[in-house]
């Protein structure tokens, strides 16, 4: 009999103390919330402390980016890629080293190399990329690189690039319309001549 009432007393007090706890959390909601509204708010990224300056640490594995204005279409990155996820197509430039305004092509890279080729297609399938960084080393113009980190000045970091469609993960770096534009331009010139 005593145990019966002791049990009732114990369970009542246990439930009440539990409810006291939860109501406290309810009223503390404003400052106690542990979750973030992700796309709008983010946790700050911790600074990397690996012993030396950020700039002298030149490997970061975030997302590839290509400065297409600097790319000379040498295909070295395509050959270096172990998973073959870079696809490059080029056309011979009609005037080596000259800008072609119609298709927004710039003739000379920032390293003042004259471009002999127009890059008509430069696709990287980021769903296949294994982030090995092997493609960035051979590039003579240093125009293919991982975003952020030591390259922060060229492209801010981007490691969150989920997409609703798998094909959206194929990044097209060549300027849109380059291929058709170039063909059309050559046809026009032929017609004029």
């Amino acid at each position, binding site marked *: 009999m005593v145990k019966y009432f002791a049990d009732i007393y114990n369970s009542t007090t246990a439930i009440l103390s539990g409810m006291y706890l939860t109501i406290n959390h309810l009223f503390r909601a404003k400052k106690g919330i542990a*979750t973030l*509204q992700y796309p709008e708010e983010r946790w700050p990224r911790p600074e990397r402390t690996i012993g030396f300056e950020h700039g002298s640490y030149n490997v970061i594995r975030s997302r590839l980016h290509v400065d297409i204005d600097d790319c000379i279409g040498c295909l070295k990155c395509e050959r270096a890629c172990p998973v073959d996820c870079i696809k490059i197509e080029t056309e011979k430039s009609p005037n080596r080293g000259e800008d072609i305004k119609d298709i927004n092509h710039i003739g000379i890279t920032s390293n003042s190399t004259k471009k002999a080729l127009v890059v008509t297609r430069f696709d990287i399938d980021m769903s296949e990329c294994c982030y090995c960084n092997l493609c960035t080393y051979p590039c003579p113009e240093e125009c293919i690189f991982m975003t952020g980190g030591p390259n922060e000045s060229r492209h801010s970091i981007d490691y969150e690039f989920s997409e609703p469609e798998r094909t959206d993960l194929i990044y097209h770096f060549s300027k849109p319309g380059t291929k058709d534009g170039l063909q059309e331009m050559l046809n026009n010139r032929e017609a004029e001549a």
Partner: protein
Amino acid sequence: MTVDFIYNFLNDLLPGFLGNDLLLILAMLLPFFALFGFITIYGFGVIYAELKVSSFIQDKTGPMGQGYGFHAGKWGLLQPVADGLHLFFKEDIIPATADRPLFILAPFLIFIGMFVGIIAIPFGEAIIISDMNIGIFYILGIGSLAVIALILAGWSSNNKWALYGGMRSAAQIISYEIPAGLSLIVVILLASSLSMQEIISYQSGGIFNWIIFDNPFMPIAFIIFFISALAETNRTPFDLPESESELVAGFVTEYSGARYAFFFLSEYVNMFVISAVAATAFLGGWQSPFPNFLNTPAWSVFWMISKAFFLVFVMIWVRWTVPRLRVDQLMHLCWKVFIPIGLFNIFGVSIWTVLRG
């Protein structure tokens, strides 16, 4: 606000405008639409409250949004609307081996059982759809319709989890009807009436005349009623019929889309009904807590709804605090704790009323 009252009112307002029969149908439809609108708004509100309260209790934000488009509106206010649309546009699957007519009937039956209970709930001196002289008895009886619906749902799904869930809920609801009834009997003893309005008028004149403060037995009766009623709604901590970890989803396992929404909504309507009954029987119903102050009809609706909503809030609060009981613990609580104490309560209150004269 009975149908007769509306009928006479409309008849005075538009004499000879409509035929007598049409007018009667109109007078019946008006409270129906009022109720339906109330339930819809209440449903959205309580689902939103449930999401937010549960999240705050767990230190989360709950549904949030920073605008429109694919966000759920400011503070996620559109989340219940999105949930509702989602449920209603989902594919409605009826299993091939299910007992089709019964499977289709069950969600309607449970919804009708909950819906019809509201008509006997008084929101004010004249604001009650049907002022029956056996109101409280009627609500208890109609509420038990849910058992049939749940067993139908469990049986007709032709699924072992659903059947287990249905059996469990039947056992649970039938068991907990007894302590709920026992503690209402105490109220009926004091008010010496089964009519909701007379139970409320017994409690007129401020907070200390409410039945819960009437004598030392009443708080116990209130707690027993509230917990038993909570058990009848099949909500955590009494959600054994649909305990996810054991029974997938219990009797709603095979339901989807709009039919599932009916089960879902009827749970929340049921919460309101039992909170309103608890408020009527123990907390003075639509009476203001201050004697002769804020006691006009508009305020009476406010008092009734706020008392009921407070109890609904307590149910949500309990749900996110207390873990689920085991089946044997559930039966132990009902048969070995609530029923003896409930019987003792009746005994005590009877003696109390006799001694008080």
